[in-house]
């Protein structure tokens, strides 16, 4: 068996990706900075950083703190707004043979709907609804931790767009399967999980939190066990496709998520340590498949 015999295709919310590897929103921009490091055509999809209806300034610095095997961020969804995004980033990404997943952010349901609506007639493939950003006071995290609100925002956004809708869930909940079921009731065509945990670091010399925002989103290899557990739990109770993420840095990591039930896998924080992480993950998946004589990922998806 060699690389050409492998069938890496996966279907996410009705859209076929040529392979399962995408990027975790907010860790890859719109891909521009990475085109110097990798061939963007190699990716199954590019998931771009969160866009909102109007430009958002984001949170004060410091926004980054390193933790043991992970990091915290409190970027706060700084972005130039959906109109700039449509003008600049869609044409850029459309040069490449890869699917475009647009992560959308909002403080209120109408704001979310506005972004979704504006993206409706553009040439993107999927919308990923971020109801789980821990760095935005209003909306953001609240939508992601209350099943009723999660269902409602999903339903409304779904009504405002023709694009297939993935909902990205927060891990900071008692029972993630409840939220998953709620957003599916609201009309989600797929799920992304997980967004960041909420974490904190203190600078004991300055006697202050490292992040200006005090707490931030916790990501990286450190959080993988939580992410994997949640993908597993959710995959057991839903039938929509899942994009798994949280600490993926190698092909082996990705295979773990696929065995737990993920269809797609997104590489996030690993991009900061290794700008070729997405390609390394893709190659690692292929090597595992060849070594274990797996022709299609279907053979191992959700095998646990």
């Amino acid at each position, binding site marked *: 068996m060699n690389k050409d015999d492998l069938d890496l295709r996966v279907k996410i919310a009705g859209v076929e990706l040529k392979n399962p590897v995408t990027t975790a929103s*907010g*860790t*890859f*921009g719109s891909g521009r*900075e*990475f085109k*110097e*490091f*990798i061939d963007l055509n190699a990716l199954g999809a590019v998931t771009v*950083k969160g866009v909102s209806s109007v430009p958002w*300034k*984001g949170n*004060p*610095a*410091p*926004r*980054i*703190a*390193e933790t*043991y*095997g*992970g*990091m915290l*961020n409190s*970027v706060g969804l*700084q972005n130039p707004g959906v109109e700039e995004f449509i003008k600049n980033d869609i044409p850029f990404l459309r040069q490449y043979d890869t699917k475009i997943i647009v992560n959308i952010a909002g403080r209120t349901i109408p704001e979310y709907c506005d972004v979704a609506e504006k993206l409706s007639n553009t040439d993107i493939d999927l919308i990923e609804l971020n109801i789980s950003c821990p760095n935005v006071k209003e909306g953001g995290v609240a939508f992601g931790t209350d099943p009723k609100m999660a269902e409602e925002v999903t339903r409304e956004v779904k009504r405002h767009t023709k694009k297939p809708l993935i909902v990205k869930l927060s891990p900071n909940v008692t029972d993630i399967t409840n939220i998953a079921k709620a957003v599916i009731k609201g009309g989600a065509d797929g799920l992304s999980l997980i967004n960041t945990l909420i974490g904190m670091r203190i600078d004991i010399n300055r006697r202050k939190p*490292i992040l*200006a925002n005090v707490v931030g989103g916790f990501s*990286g*290899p450190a959080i993988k066990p939580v992410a994997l557990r949640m993908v597993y739990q959710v995959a057991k109770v839903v039938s929509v496709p899942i994009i798994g993420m949280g600490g993926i840095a190698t092909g082996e990591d990705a295979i773990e998520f696929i065995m737990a039930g993920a269809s797609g896998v997104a590489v996030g*924080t690993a*991009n*900061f*340590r*290794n*700008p*070729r992480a997405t390609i390394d993950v893709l190659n690692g998946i292929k090597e595992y498949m060849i070594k274990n004589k797996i022709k299609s990922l279907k053979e191992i998806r959700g095998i646990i």
Partner: protein
Amino acid sequence: MREIKKLIVLENKLISSNIYSMVLQSKGLAKISKPGQFINLYCREGSRLLPRPISICEINKLEDTIKLVYAVVGAGTKEFSNIKVGEKIEALGPLGNGFIIEKDKTKNIIVGGGIGVPPLLELAKNLNGEIEVYLGFRSKSILIEDFKKYGAKVHVATEDGSEGFKGNVLELMKKNNVNGSIIYSCGPKPMLKAVAKWAKKKNIPMQVSLEERMACGIGVCVGCVCKIKDKNQSDWQYKKVCKDGPVFWSDEVIWDE
């Protein structure tokens, strides 16, 4: 394609208390680097994920080497200090925009503080005209002789008075009645802020090299921001130190923190 390179360490020696000078065989990096740019150094220890940004202190295009000068402040720089000559270190660069060298300026003033001094050395090498260098330290100075080598006039201030003027660098500049056609500066934020205020009063254009906690170093994570005024000065945006900087014009910067 660009990539993280494994560079051979040619020198890694203590030059002052806790401060090291590291020379790297640069695999072509020297050729494309400019004063004020920095590189990402990556730790071997996997629990430390994020790159450490370190400014380029000297560039030797002929020998294809670059020199870094870094202070040991935490576990990452501690790790670097233990690397032996002949071993390799992973690095990505050059990153960021360097100083904007204004060749027509006849009197250049360089103002550096502490571990902000190193990037100013390569800058000094690349300036035309007169160069007056003001350096402030807590106690021990670094790189003084190197600046002199490039024909600069060097003035030192130390907080504890153990070397040169006792006090901060701005006090020394005021005392010396400094004037010039441009200021290039790098150092702790309070110093930059104070000098910027003074430069504004004196109407001297000034460039500052800023520092911020980074994750990617390549403009992707939007982690390393500082407040920069819009062109018309009516509003401001968070700009990325790693990609839009680290050098900015001082009058663009909002110094509120």
